[in-house]
């Protein structure tokens, strides 16, 4: 059974709660290891909007967690790294990318833009591979590098909004 802990995860204050716009609501991006999330980020509208309510964030995490079984199943059936949409909950979809070591990048989103999401995943894949080459980074541990954080945010801004 997977233990889900949120204590080791950073919350980004750059998320938005702009429900009135017709564009996508904030996207939640998670990097999940074997047991727990290793990294999380939110991509949404520009700053100045209030921080997402705790309840919505928790709900997003629960939705992501419940999709993990489906992700595992499709990992073994599909040999591609980019697994596209693995689960749909109400109006939200979860796209996943699974690396060679079964580290999963999961994105909770509402729109349907496969190409942008695939490019985003490939960018993060390159960043993650470079990070894992660091001999001081232990496999399957939370990612705390500020540079990694900055670059993932930049990639998200470039592809996802």
């Amino acid at each position, binding site marked *: 059974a997977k233990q889900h802990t949120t204590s080791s995860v950073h919350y980004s204050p750059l998320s938005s709660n702009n429900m009135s716009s017709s564009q996508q609501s904030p996207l939640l991006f998670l990097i999940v290891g074997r047991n727990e999330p290793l990294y999380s980020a939110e991509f949404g509208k520009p700053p100045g909007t209030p921080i997402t309510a705790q309840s919505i964030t928790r709900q997003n995490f629960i939705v992501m967690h419940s999709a993990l079984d489906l992700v595992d199943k499709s*990992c*073994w*059936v599909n*040999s*591609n*790294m*980019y697994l596209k949409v693995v689960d749909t909950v109400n109006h939200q979809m979860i796209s996943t990318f*699974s*690396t*060679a*070591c*079964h580290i999963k990048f999961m994105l909770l989103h509402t729109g349907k833009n496969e190409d942008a999401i695939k490019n985003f995943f*490939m960018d993060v*894949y*390159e*960043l*993650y*591979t*470079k*990070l*894992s*080459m*660091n001999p001081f980074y*232990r*496999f399957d541990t939370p990612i705390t*590098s500020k*540079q*990694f954080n900055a*670059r993932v945010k930049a990639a998200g801004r470039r592809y996802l909004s």
Partner: protein
Amino acid sequence: NNRTRRRKQTKNQPYSIDNNKDLLLTFIAFKMSRQTAMPTSILDRPLTRGRTEQVSLSAFGLMYSELVQYHQNRVSSIPELERRLESSGYGVGFKVLELLAFRGREAKRETRIMSILQFISVTAWKSLFGKGADSLERSLDNADEYMIFDNNPITSTFLSSHKSSADAYISGIIAGILEGAGFTARVQAVCPSADEGDARGIIGLPRRKDKAVFVVKFADKVLERDAALG
């Protein structure tokens, strides 16, 4: 005489570095202007390897002998040494898997036992040791055992005895790659004995003492999952 002459020369120059502070500042400015041109972060450095980047065998041999001696001084038995070398190689396996999968540029994972074993014996071996493994075979006695053959593993090239102990490092690398890809397995390095050599029917060739066999034994659930995939 030379020294006094040089001192007089610096005095006559129109621009001269008078005191140590100026010298230090120009040095720092020079260094910083150089450094902005060079990548400062691991996230900037390229992952693809240049054509000429290689490590010499002697450099590896030297460093590996130091690693083995380091562990040898801290253990009291040979199995413990092998365990330590194996866990040293274990971490390398994960990183090798991620790196080689990325360099393959195909964005695909291996999901079957045969494909991951071929990845190890061809791609990983070539990247790590310069040539592919000599062969990959399935054991006739046990359905969950596979064997990777290497005629001259670099970890034991320079050893005269206890070769399979030093090869535990490579066993660790293989185990790390398999575990990373989701195939839990136990890997052991053995030296094929004289009986085995004859049984394989190689008559007339001298028995090669440096040959090593890596026996890979998969966990049950891995075999079940592989069978279920058809």
